[in-house]
């Protein structure tokens, strides 16, 4: 396990403040990781020993939890995140073609960020929007019945323009 560079003093105090807010709760670790990721954009490897010490857990225990869950990232994402659903309902409604279109337009695969840092493409397995498949989330907004054209329009109007 790569402990990475030590957390900077500023990050460390933010992480400790988050731990402090949750430590009285039952089973607080995942709640803490959520808040750390919301604050820092990711759960950096350097956060692991800080959280472990504060909760009196081993680094392995904390690392094990961080890496078990797909949601927690080790590095911050791009300025925008596109989460495309890859599950069966979306596949049945043309999701595969949409996936190929997205990866070729963006020039990246799932889990990757465009070289300019503008957009991260993530796979998601069901957004519960299956009656309007194929579906995706661009940042906090949900989109259904996507086509290649509509996805292009979203990326042009949204991520690309605002970036």
């Amino acid at each position: 396990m790569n402990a990475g560079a030590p957390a900077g003093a500023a990050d460390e105090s933010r992480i400790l403040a988050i731990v402090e807010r949750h430590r009285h709760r039952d089973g607080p670790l995942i709640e803490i990781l959520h808040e750390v990721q919301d604050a820092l954009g990711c759960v950096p490897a350097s956060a692991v020993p800080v959280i472990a010490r504060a909760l009196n857990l081993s680094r392995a225990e904390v690392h094990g939890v961080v890496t078990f869950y797909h949601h927690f990232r080790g590095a911050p994402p791009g300025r925008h995140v596109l989460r495309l659903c890859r599950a069966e309902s979306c596949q049945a409604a043309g999701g595969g073609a949409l996936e190929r279109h997205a990866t070729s337009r963006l020039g990246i695969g799932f889990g990757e960020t465009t070289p300019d840092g503008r957009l991260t493409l993530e796979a998601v397995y069901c957004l519960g929007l299956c009656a309007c498949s194929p579906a995706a989330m661009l940042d906090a907004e949900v989109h259904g019945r996507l086509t290649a054209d509509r996805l292009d329009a979203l990326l042009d109007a949204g991520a690309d323009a605002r970036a």
Partner: protein
Amino acid sequence: MSVTVWVPRDAGALALGAEATARRLVAEAGRAGAAICLRRNGSRGLYWLEPLVEVETAAGRIAYGPVAAADVPGLVAQGMLAGAAHPLRLGPIEGHPWLASQQRLTFARVGRIDPLDLAAYRAQGGYRGLARALELGPEAIVNEVVESGLRGRGGAAFPTGIKWQTVRKQPPGPRFVACNADEGDSGTFSDRMLMEGDPFALIEGMTIAGVATGATRGFIYLRIEYPHAFEVMGAAIAAARAAGCLGADVLGSGRAFDIEIRLGAGAYICGEETSMLESLEGRRGEVRVRPPLPAERGLFGAPTVVNNVITLATVPAILADGAAAYREFGQAKSRGTLPLQLAGNIRRGGLVERAFGLTVRELIEDYGGGSASGRPIRAVQIGGPLGAYLPASQFDTPLEYESLSAIGAMLGHGGVVAFDDTVDMLEMARYAMEFCAHESCGKCTPCRIGSVRGAEALDRIRRGDDPEANLALVGELCDTMVQASLCGLGGMAPFPVQSALKHFPADFRRRRPGH
């Protein structure tokens, strides 16, 4: 006098542009000098008509849909705010045949009320169930739930009352109610719709479970992919607390019950109940070996009721109107109603709540109207990524637990995903293995390794690389996974693979290189 106009804030409606429609309505009404009161509801579940706008008139709520933002100026100009004619006018929504033919018990209020309007919830029957439960007391509540025949709607279909009885009979000490809102099966969205459209029903159901079993704390384990549900549930819990429906003295009964939401972190396996408990405790979501059952030793080692959202949200109606009324719906050992979710390549997708017994064909043809692409429906997958694929020859099977089980399929959480005749069943079989590999918690070997080897063998079959030997290998891997996995993920991931092999053998043969 202002006209009340309803536009859903359900995530599915938002995904189809409901927010832009709502903003445009306010702007256009203002421009026309008409006073409107914009209200937000859940979705009625007629998703091909979303955004579905309802206008309150003397003749009831008149629906228009699908209303894109660009349609709004024309609609307003043509008198939509008075319920006037228009090509998008659907008429009185409650009389719409797709809705009127349903039997909505669990979803009785969804789409009809503002989800956060506690007074409206009470006016439409809310909290009658809890009031009666408090009069009955724990033992009689449990008996009522047993009598109703309610079985777990998350997929396992275990009798809910029996589970509650087990928790109730544990030695004195803390207990918990843990609501499984980790609705990860593709093709399912009833939990989401319920939480976004009628959150107090879930709160009331959990409170009744608490009263019945002696639990004073409840947790909702909610998937992170549902940010809208998270927001609505959080606001509803706060409102319930402020109104004395949750807290130290529930409805003045002297009993305490409160609810906390915990967000998942993108792990399908956490929908498995013991994995969910591990995750609620802040650990890796690895499944636990049973026994002990969660009803005996569950969350933080205490007896725990673990039920799905729909199961719990159905309890208030059972308590309010009695077990006998609920039992009247359904057939054989599948009593009550089931909120089916119709998805995939389908013309009219959405939520269909009916008594058990509707056939697959009635669902996909009468309600669904066939495929969205207009091509024949070749297969449906029922019950999520671990559910079997059914060929057209099995479409007359009733959607109830035992009938599906008899053909090697399962109802699961009630999601039905339609595929047209362009589907490649080898690809779907491979996906089932790939998904299992992606989501395996890693604790047992059949699931962790079997799924990876299964996907590899299917790749070789696709390449035409010794297909007979590889088909035999896939068969063996499936058997091992079914027989030897610790939980349902590895134990059921082979079902879609085996059913695809059995019913669509041609897709696995005569493959050419590159196909």
